């Protein structure tokens, strides 16, 4: 028995010793960032027919890759269903999960993750057929609802219908395509997801015009990137890339003018772009990390507008996602 204990302790010590390389080292050695995204959700992360990924969640990973490698294309995207995404991050198959994932306490604590910020403040909504003549979610008693499994939506449904003393039937599918197909074919009266995603999904229906989104928003869904527990430097790197994108917008640094702004007289801009201070070193990068990210991908506002904003096919207003200076919730922590 003693010998087994010794052997086991040896194995343990070994594995503990080996596991010490940091995520950043791994990413650099690999030459690419492994980024978990959706299997296709326009505006957030979706591949075109040539396999090029676009969306705000995709652009965030590109910004990280630009900060590390000075090349926004050094990203390997792993499409994940809602159900499988957390296992992929826990097991180390991906370095960061950037997949419209709601920041909740249990995910942050018991699943062993750290959320780095909120790329998009959202809330859960409902879509129904116009022909049902329904104006409010309060009229949904007895409805059949299609939802994707492994989401916060499954749980919110339970809360909302119980709180309002209504009954419902939930059909949970593992992929978004199956969920949408079932709703489209009439299996369900209602499709539910984050409201932003409903607009994206509406575009996929046979007759987008036959469906309406109900006014109620039944939950808080702060969507953002997350990493594994246990590597604080990597967590910092992801978190501060997000803040850098916000600060860039606030300070008027854009993809176009970033190179000139390096010589700006504004000390805040200088610290952001690395012409003053040694802030990049703190996250294991060179000091112009944020300059690289903004130059290649744009600031937060540019990313938002390009992918989901009023001029994109989704046509979503900034709303809660405006900067704090404009009455929204987006607030970049100071770089100093």
């Amino acid at each position, binding site marked *: 028995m003693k010998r*087994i204990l010794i*052997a*086991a302790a040896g*194995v*343990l010590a070994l*594995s*503990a010793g080996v*596991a010490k390389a940091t995520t950043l080292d791994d990413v650099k050695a690999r030459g690419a960032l492994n980024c978990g995204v959706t299997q296709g959700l326009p505006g957030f992360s979706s591949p075109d027919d040539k396999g090029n990924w676009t969306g705000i969640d995709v652009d965030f990973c590109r910004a990280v890759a630009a900060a590390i490698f000075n090349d926004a294309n050094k990203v390997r995207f792993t499409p994940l269903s*809602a*159900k*499988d995404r*957390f*296992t992929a991050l*826990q097991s180390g198959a991906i370095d960061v999960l950037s997949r419209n994932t709601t920041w909740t306490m*249990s*995910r942050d*604590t*018991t*699943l*062993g993750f750290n959320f780095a910020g909120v790329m998009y403040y959202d809330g859960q909504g409902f879509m129904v057929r116009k022909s*049902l003549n329904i104006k409010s979610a309060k009229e*949904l*008693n*007895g*409805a*059949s609802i*299609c939802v994707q*499994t*492994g989401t916060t939506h*499954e*749980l919110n*449904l*339970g*809360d909302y219908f*119980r709180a309002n003393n209504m009954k*419902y*039937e*939930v*059909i*949970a*599918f*593992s992929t978004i395509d*199956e969920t949408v*197909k*079932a709703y489209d*074919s*009439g*299996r369900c*009266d209602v499709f539910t997801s984050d409201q932003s995603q409903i607009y994206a999904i509406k575009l996929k229906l046979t007759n987008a015009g036959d469906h309406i989104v109900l006014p109620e928003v039944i939950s808080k869904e702060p969507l953002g990137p997350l990493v*594994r*527990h*246990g590597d604080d430097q990597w967590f910092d790197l992801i978190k501060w890339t997000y803040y850098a994108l916000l600060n860039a917008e606030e300070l008027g640094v854009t993809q176009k003018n970033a190179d000139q702004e390096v010589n700006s007289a504004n000390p805040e801009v200088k610290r952001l772009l690395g012409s003053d201070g040694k802030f990049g070193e703190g996250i294991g990068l060179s000091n112009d990390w944020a300059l690289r990210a903004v130059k290649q991908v744009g600031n937060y506002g540019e990313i938002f507008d390009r992918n989901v904003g009023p001029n994109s096919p989704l046509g979503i207003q900034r709303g809660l996602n405006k900067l704090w200076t404009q009455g929204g919730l987006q607030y970049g922590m100071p770089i100093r």
Partner: protein
Amino acid sequence: MTDASLRGGEPTRRWSWTDPKLRSLVLQGLLGIFLIGMAWAILANAQANLARQGIASGFGFLDNSAGFGISQTLIPYSESMSYGRAFLVGLLNTLLVAFLGIIIATIIGFLVGVARLSDNVVIKALASAYVEVTRNLPPLFQIMFWYIAVLAALPNPRQSLGFGIQPLLNALGDGAAAIGLAPLGAALKGFAASFGTPGVFLNNRGLVIPRPLFEAGSDVVGLALVAAIVLIFVLARWAKRRRVATGQQFPVFWTSLALLIVLPLIAGAATGFPVAFEKPELKGFNFAGGIRVIPEFVALLLALSIYTAGFIAEIVRAGIVSVSKGQTEAAASLGLKPGLTMRLVVIPQAMRVIIPPLTSQYLNLTKNSTLGVAVGYPDLFAIFAGTTLNQTGQAIEIIAITMAVYLTISILTTIVMNWYNRRVALVER
């Protein structure tokens, strides 16, 4: 060791490496210790890693409330119940589809297997086509096919297809009138009017049937049913003993059927038919009341049964072909009719060839039921290894439990089938 070696005063001989029995015992012991040590090390390592990453572990989560809804529940369930309860709901859903699937697949499989040996060219060709098509399309594809086909073909709840005694009697009445039996037609339609609206509906939310509500006195009917079954057993034994003794036949099958129907009927009449039916009614979006069979279940059950039946058909055919033609000829020369020859001579001998591969088809069907995830059927895999795993993040515990459950189901199936196999196996004399 042997007495001789002990008496010979050669104790070292006992530990000699040249003794193959001892050597293998020692080696196996060492291997066993090594494997246990490895398993322990892996477990400890996993535990330490989970703790370091701050991932919860242990089985305490089974008591936490699940929070999500489930579309098909054979036992009462609500969101406020525990993950443990959700696990049970999923397990029962898996068992339901596997059990019914095995029964249906066996029936179709035997029919098609026998049909492939038919002398009738058309039947033979149809059976061959069935086998080739169902065996060669992936089961996932077949599940999706049935789901989409079922959903696409059916109307929404407000335009449901209604079935019941009333439409049936009306149709019969029309038919009677059409062939010139006007009074009978009128009588049938009048009788139809005494029934309410139809109680069975079919739409893209599933098949809705009335729910029987058992009132006081229904236990008498239940008792009558049990009594009938007991009587049938007694009857069968008596008939067999009489046949062996006197050679006289007794129509056991028909008598049993009559007992099974008549006894409960008498009890029902005596207690004033204590069963009421809760009829489904269209309320808002869906039907309320009654029992609903959801399309996800229907699609999965159809696909699994039809797919597996293709394999079973081949197994049955091979089994029958394996019985030598001499057996059939011998039976015929004894004067047995072809039907009896099949039942009493061929099938019992074919069974011992059929059962072992049949068992693995049953296991395949059960395991394939996990493909129901694709159409949103809430089986154990979807509910537990899917939603619960995602919600709690406790992959190791949940995968271990899920594996243990499927393993147990498979082993139990195998035990039952082996027991049956031993019973029907040919006893060599």
